[in-house]
C-alpha cells in the first residue's frame, strides 16, 4: 500500500490556478523529490502536504488515512525550511526540544532525545548557542535535528540547501541521503536543482506550470523524458533538441541535407512530420561513425574546459548544440570537425506538442 498518496489535488488562489490535478503515490521509505523551476508550484504542493496551506480539490492520504483536513501538528510530519526557521530567542537544544515541549513530554525525556539527535548530527558542542551564533551549515543541522527529534513518519524538506555555499551543499546532500538510508523515513524534498533531484531521489516529480510533467524514477526521467520540458530541464548541460522532419521513406530524419535514421526507441511518425531529436551532450564523441552511431560534420565555435570534461559548442546542420567530451579530447576552437553521436537512446519529440514519441 502506498505510504503517501496525492490524488487529483489542485490549488486555486483567487482567480489563479497554481496547481492542477496532481497525482503522486510513493511507498514507505521512499525519497521523493519535487523538482522544477521557481513558480512551478512545488513549494505550494509541499505546504499542502504539510497542512500549512489548504487544498482546493482532491485528497491527500497517508498510510491509507486521509490527512488533508488535519492540522499540521496532527499529521505526524516534520519540516525543514529553506531559511531553517530556527527560533531566534532559543538555544540550539531548546530549538530541538521545542516540538517535544509542545507535545508535553517531561523535561528529562526531552533532554534525552535532544542528546540522541545532537549526537547523530554531531552538534553536541553547539547545544547552548543561539542560532545567530551558528554558521549556515550548523543552522541547517539544527533545523534537521528539530525535525528528527519527533521521529515523524514523513519528512518534508523545502529547498534546504539553497542557502549554503557550493561545497557545503554537496556535503549536506550526501549527508541527507546517508541519513535517509539510515533512518528509512519517507521524505519529500523540494528543490530547483536537478542534480540534487537526480542524486538523492528514488522518485522524481518534475513540475512546471502547476502540473506534474513527469513522475518516475531518476532513470526513467533521465532516459525516457516524457516531453521536451523534462528532457531539457534534467541534465547539465541540457539536452540538445534538433529540429528535423521525417523524410519520405518514413524511416529517417532529415536535418537539412543530412539523413539520420529514426532512433530505435522512437515511434516513427508519418513522413513530413516536424519533430525534435533529443541528443544528450555526453553522447557525442570525436571521430567517425561506428556501430549505432551517426557522423555529423560540424564547426566548433567555443570550448569550455571544466576539468573532467570539455563542453564544446558546435554548429551542425545549421543548428548550434552543446557537446560534452572527455578531457584530453583533441578539439580546437574555430575548427571544422566531425563528431559522431550515439542515437541508440535518442528520444524523438513531436515539434508541436513537445510530447515524446516512444515506440512502446
Amino acid at each position, binding site marked *: 500500500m502506498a505510504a503517501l498518496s496525492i490524488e487529483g489535488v489542485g490549488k486555486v488562489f483567487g482567480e489563479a490556478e497554481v496547481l492542477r490535478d496532481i497525482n503522486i503515490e510513493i511507498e514507505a521509505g521512499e525519497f521523493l523529490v519535487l523538482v522544477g523551476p521557481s513558480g512551478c508550484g512545488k513549494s505550494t504542493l509541499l505546504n499542502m502536504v*504539510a497542512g500549512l496551506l489548504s487544498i482546493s480539490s482532491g485528497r491527500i492520504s497517508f498510510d491509507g488515512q486521509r490527512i488533508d483536513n488535519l*492540522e499540521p501538528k496532527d499529521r505526524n510530519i516534520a519540516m525543514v*525550511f529553506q531559511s531553517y526557521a530556527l527560533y531566534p530567542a532559543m538555544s540550539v537544544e531548546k530549538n530541538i526540544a521545542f516540538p517535544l515541549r509542545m507535545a508535553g513530554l517531561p523535561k528529562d525525556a526531552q533532554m534525552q532525545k535532544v542528546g540522541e539527535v545532537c549526537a547523530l548530527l554531531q552538534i553536541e558542542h553547539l547545544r547552548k548557542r543561539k542560532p545567530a551564533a551558528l554558521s549556515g551549515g550548523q543552522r541547517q543541522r539544527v533545523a534537521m535535528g528539530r525535525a528528527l527529534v519527533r521521529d515523524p513518519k514523513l519528512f518534508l524538506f523545502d529547498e534546504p540547501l539553497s542557502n549554503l555555499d557550493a561545497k557545503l551543499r554537496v556535503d549536506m546532500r550526501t549527508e541527507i541521503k546517508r541519513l535517509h538510508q539510515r533512518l528509512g523515513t519517507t521524505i519529500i524534498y523540494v528543490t530547483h536543482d536537478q542534480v540534487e533531484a537526480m542524486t538523492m531521489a528514488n522518485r522524481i516529480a518534475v513540475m512546471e506550470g502547476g502540473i506534474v510533467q513527469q513522475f518516475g524514477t531518476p532513470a526513467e526521467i533521465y532516459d525516457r523524458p516524457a516531453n521536451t520540458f523534462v528532457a531539457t530541464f534534467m541534465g547539465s548541460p541540457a539536452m540538445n533538441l534538433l529540429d528535423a522532419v521525417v523524410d519520405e521513406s518514413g524511416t529517417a530524419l532529415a536535418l537539412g541535407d543530412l539523413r539520420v535514421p529514426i532512433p530505435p526507441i522512437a515511434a516513427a511518425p508519418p513522413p513530413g512530420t516536424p519533430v525534435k531529436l533529443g541528443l544528450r551532450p555526453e553522447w557525442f564523441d570525436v571521430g567517425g561513425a561506428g556501430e549505432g552511431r551517426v557522423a555529423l560534420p560540424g564547426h566548433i565555435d567555443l570550448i569550455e574546459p571544466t576539468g573532467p570534461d570539455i563542453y564544446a559548442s558546435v554548429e551542425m546542420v545549421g543548428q548550434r548544440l552543446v557537446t560534452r567530451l572527455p578531457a584530453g579530447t583533441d578539439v580546437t576552437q574555430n575548427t571544422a570537425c566531425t563528431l559522431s553521436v550515439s542515437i541508440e537512446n535518442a528520444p524523438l519529440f513531436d515539434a508541436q506538442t513537445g510530447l515524446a514519441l516512444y515506440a512502446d
Partner: protein
Amino acid sequence: MTVEAARTPGTLQRVLIYAVLLLAALFFLMPLAAMVFTSLKTMPEITGAAGFESNTILTPPQAPSTEAWGTAWQSACIAVACEGLRGYFWNSIVMVVFAVFFSVMFGAINGYVLAKWRFRGDNIIFGMLLFGCFIPFQIVLIPMARLLGFLDMAGTLHGLIFVHLCYGIPFTTLFFRNFYVTIPDELISAGRIDGAGFWSIFFLILMPISLPIFVVAIIWQFTNVWNDFLFGASFAGADARPLMVALNNLVNTSTGTKAYNVDMAGAMIAALPTILVYVVGGRYFVRGLTSGAVKG
C-alpha cells in the same frame, strides 16, 4: 562604509566637531537648567529682591534648598486641598500602568494577527485602525463623554484609562504589525508544524524577539498618556485627576504670589518619569524605530 572609515577626521576637525556638539547640547539644556535652578532657589533669590539684584534665571542657586520640592510634593494648595501633587502623582501612575500595559498587549496581539494570520478583510480592519491614529482628540470629546456616561464610567480613573486605550491601540497595533511583517512567515509555519498553537507561537516564539518594538510602544504610550492634559481635564473627576491637570491647577492659580520655585519643582516632578523611561529604554527606542527599515 569602508570608504567612510578610510577618511577618519583629523584632530583639529575632531575638536571642532566636539565643540559644536557641546555648544548645541548646552543650548538645549538651558531651559532644563533654568527649571532646576529655580526649583532650588528661595523666592527672594528668584524675584531679584535686595541682595540678589544681579541674578538672572540662569544664575545657580546660592543656597540650594529642596524646600520647594517638598512643598510641591506634599503641601502645595491645589484647588481647595493643600496636600501637594502626591495624590495626583499616584493617580497618574495607576492610569499610565494600566493604559500602557493593556494598549501595548492589545497592540501586540492585533499586530501579530494582522501580520501573520491573514483573514478575509484584514486590510480593511487595519485601514480602519490606522484611521484611528489620525482622529484629532478634540473631535471625540463629546461623543466620548456620552459613551463614558452610558458605560457608567464618567469621572472615574478607569474611564480615563479606557479613553487612553481607545486612542493608544491604533498606534501600538501599527507599530507591532509593521514589526511582525518583517519576521519571516517560515517561523510561524515551523511553529505550527512543531505543534505550537496561536498563543504558544506568540508567547514563546515571537514575544522573546519583540523587545525593541515593545520598548518603542511602551515609550510612545507612556509619554502620551503621562503627558496628556486634555482627556485628563475633560474626563477625570475630582478624585481621579491625573498629575498634568493638577500641575496646571497648581501653576495657574490666580491668588497670592506666584511661587515659581514650587511651580518649577512641580513641573520637574511631572517630567521625571518620562525622562526615566527614556533613559532606561532609549537604547532600544532608536533600534526599534529603524528595525523595519533594515534587514536583520
